[in-house]
């Protein structure tokens, strides 16, 4: 026989090498399995699914950006905890709204300082607010038609052409954070769309907030460090806050393993099984999922048929959708979320009526319709993705006799169609720009969202009149009545079907304190501490 022993010996070598390598890999892994919360260097890790474009307050309007800006910038007014009913002082120590609701006067606080130590001045305020308005970034509408003027070194006057009682509720928006205008201007900040400061503001915050930006990456993580110069009474607790972009499913594992201390986007399903010394904060969010049926017969002969809309409205199994959304979610009775003034009471919510739906479909004269339902495929709201909702709606409507073809698209593509009013059926959500029902008037015909449903001005005079009335009302009672009326009419004949308000489930390590869900900025990092 031929000799082969050399092969065996030589052959063993790679195996030995391999084993050593695998061991090295494992030992590396084991040593750094977790960081105990708080104590070690006082680092807080927040996991969230990023919806982040920028840290420039003048441009930001995405939830993650608002979290970052809330921590790094102060606004003139703010809200206390999760209470959105009453704006409280921040950089402004007091404010006064004129009786006609057109002029808001704010008194600046003395002694507030930016992170670089320079004082916050009225000029900074005027520059920052004007910049937001005139740069025409996403949040510029917040200050549409508002004139900003410095009366003296400590007084700012905001003047609107029409009564603007919502303005004090708008000012806390982190998009209206006050910039260190000198630093910002040095880096290209201007008061028009040619502003070039964004890059700078992404690398270093120019605010007076309790934290400053250490590093910023729109796709992976944002690291905040405590602002040692913070002027406020309550100093930042953590030295460092890491906000990481993590899928919701992974968030759950991370927080359970102690790899992170806060998980922001767990769906009801994901929270259901959670245990082991974690705190779960369940709140109904201010997001409202809704279905729209395009009223433009150029887009669809089917969905523009009012009886078809009725069939859809009656055909949807709202309870089933709630079940999908999981704990903490509620059915949206109207387009205005339950915690806002003018929200429709729960008993007025739509109910499923399959027979009624079939009847309506029969009356519509459309037989065996097939419609396309568009929705953003990879977007999740509080851990809830659109996919199962769409699939459930598809199944619901199938029972009625409507064939729904699902056409998910990446959010940008889907958004395009949605904004251009090209969707036959659309599944979307609306988050409030500020905690006031006036926000929702854009659902009226001819308005922003109305147009997206192909609902042109004049298409439904009744609803339009109700919307105008609601917009003009000033007192709380009047407003409440007017908004309720508006929503009832909208529900009756409008193209929108409010579905659910998903719960906001914030899971934190047992040690973390001060967690409050806020409808505008989700979470105020500065409020977080540790036991």
């Amino acid at each position, binding site marked *: *026989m*031929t*000799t*082969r*022993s*050399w092969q065996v010996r030589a052959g063993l070598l790679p195996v030995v090498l391999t084993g050593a390598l695998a061991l090295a890999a494992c030992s590396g892994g084991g040593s750094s399995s977790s960081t105990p919360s708080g104590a070690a260097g006082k680092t807080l890790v927040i996991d969230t699914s990023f919806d982040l474009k920028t840290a420039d307050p003048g441009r930001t309007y995405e939830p993650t950006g608002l979290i970052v800006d809330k921590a790094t910038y102060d606004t003139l007014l703010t809200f206390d905890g999760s209470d959105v009913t009453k704006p409280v002082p921040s950089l402004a120590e007091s404010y006064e709204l004129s009786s006609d609701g057109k002029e808001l006067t704010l008194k600046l606080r003395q002694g507030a300082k930016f992170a670089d130590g320079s004082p916050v001045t009225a000029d900074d305020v005027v520059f920052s607010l004007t910049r937001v308005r005139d740069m025409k970034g996403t949040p510029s509408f917040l200050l549409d038609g508002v004139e900003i003027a410095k009366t003296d070194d400590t007084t700012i006057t905001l003047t609107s052409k029409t009564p603007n009682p919502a303005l004090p509720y708008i000012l806390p928006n982190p998009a209206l954070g006050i910039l260190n205008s000198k630093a910002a201007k040095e880096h290209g900040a201007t008061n028009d769309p040619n502003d070039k400061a964004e890059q700078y503001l992404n690398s270093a915050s120019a605010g007076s907030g309790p934290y400053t930006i250490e590093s910023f990456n729109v796709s992976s993580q944002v690291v905040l460090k405590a602002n040692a110069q913070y002027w406020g009474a309550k100093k930042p607790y953590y030295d460092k806050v890491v906000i990481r972009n993590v899928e919701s499913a992974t968030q759950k594992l991370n927080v359970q393993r102690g790899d992170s201390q806060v998980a922001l986007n767990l769906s009801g399903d994901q929270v259901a099984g959670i245990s082991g010394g974690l705190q779960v904060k369940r709140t109904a969010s201010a997001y409202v999922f809704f279905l729209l049926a395009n009223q433009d017969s150029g887009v669809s002969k089917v969905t523009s048929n009012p009886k078809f809309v009725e069939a859809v409205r009656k055909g949807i199994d709202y309870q089933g959708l709630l079940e999908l959304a999981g704990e903490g979610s509620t059915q949206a009775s109207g387009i205005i979320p339950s915690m806002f003034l003018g929200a429709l009471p729960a008993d007025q919510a739509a109910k499923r009526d399959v027979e009624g739906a079939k009847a309506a479909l029969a009356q519509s004269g459309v037989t065996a319709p097939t419609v396309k339902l568009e929705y953003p495929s990879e977007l999740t709201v509080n851990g809830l993705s659109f996919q199962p909702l769409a699939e459930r709606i598809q199944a619901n409507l199938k029972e009625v006799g409507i064939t729904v073809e699902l056409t998910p698209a990446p959010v940008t593509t889907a958004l395009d169609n949605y904004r251009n009013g090209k969707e036959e059926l659309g599944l979307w959500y609306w988050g409030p720009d500020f905690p006031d029902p006036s926000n929702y008037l854009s659902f009226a015909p001819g308005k922003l969202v109305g147009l997206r449903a192909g609902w042109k001005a004049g298409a439904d005079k009744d609803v339009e009149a109700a919307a105008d009335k609601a917009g003009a009302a000033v007192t709380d009672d009047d407003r409440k009545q007017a908004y309720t009326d508006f929503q009832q009419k909208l529900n009756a004949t409008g193209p929108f079907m409010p579905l659910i308000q998903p719960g906001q489930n914030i899971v934190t390590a047992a040690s973390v304190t001060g967690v409050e869900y806020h409808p505008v900025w989700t979470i105020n990092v500065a409020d977080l501490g540790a036991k």
Partner: protein
Amino acid sequence: MTAAQKTAALTIERLRMSIGGHDVLHGVDLTLEAGRVHGLAGESGSGKTMTGLAVLGLLPHGSRASGRIAFGGRDLLEMPARELNEVRGAKIAMVFQDPATSLHPMLTVERQLTEHMRHHLGIGRKEARERAAGLLAKVRIPGPEEALKRYPHQFSGGMRQRIAIAVALACEPEVLIADEPTTALDVTVQAGILRLLRGLCDDLGLAVLLVTHDLGVMSAVADEVSVMKDGLVVETGPRGQVLREPRHPYTRSLLDALPVPPGENSP
């Protein structure tokens, strides 16, 4: 030629071999003597190459051999792997058919000439180098010192075969197995190699097993000739007898198939 010495350098007895269950050798008997060239002839597939490989234990994957290959009083087939490795290259060397593939294309001539010398003879780099240059000179490679630094692809086919022969001779073996050493070469080059082989055999007293299908080559250098057919040696004898008065019909048919009758083609 020292025909008087009749010492058997290597004896193959009843060698049988199978590859993957197919018998390729059915009991081959051969005797090699020092200072003599033993020609092994046959057509392709007759098993002549396998016989040569079996001597060194270089059988293809999945093959089995039995019988006896006696060398220096021991049976190579029974020899432990390690000891057999000491015989290979040192006592029994081999030259293959195609010098283009039997030399490693990525190693210098020096490395291929010296590595087994150093391994078998335990000599140093310098000494091995000197011997290597001497060997190249012996196989008539021009500029041996320079040639050591070059790679096989920088030589012509004939030169490569000379190098391969030098490699085989490096450890002064007793037996040389040459498997179709000139088949891949042109006739004018072949003539040189045949002369070289014959000369080495005579000068060094090597026992050579020359495997070839070319009866002309056989006639030119072999002292004894064996003819193989289907895994068996059908005829063995002195060159003149086998080629001029073949006893076995197969040998006769081989000779008859030649384009020119023997003895008629000298110019």
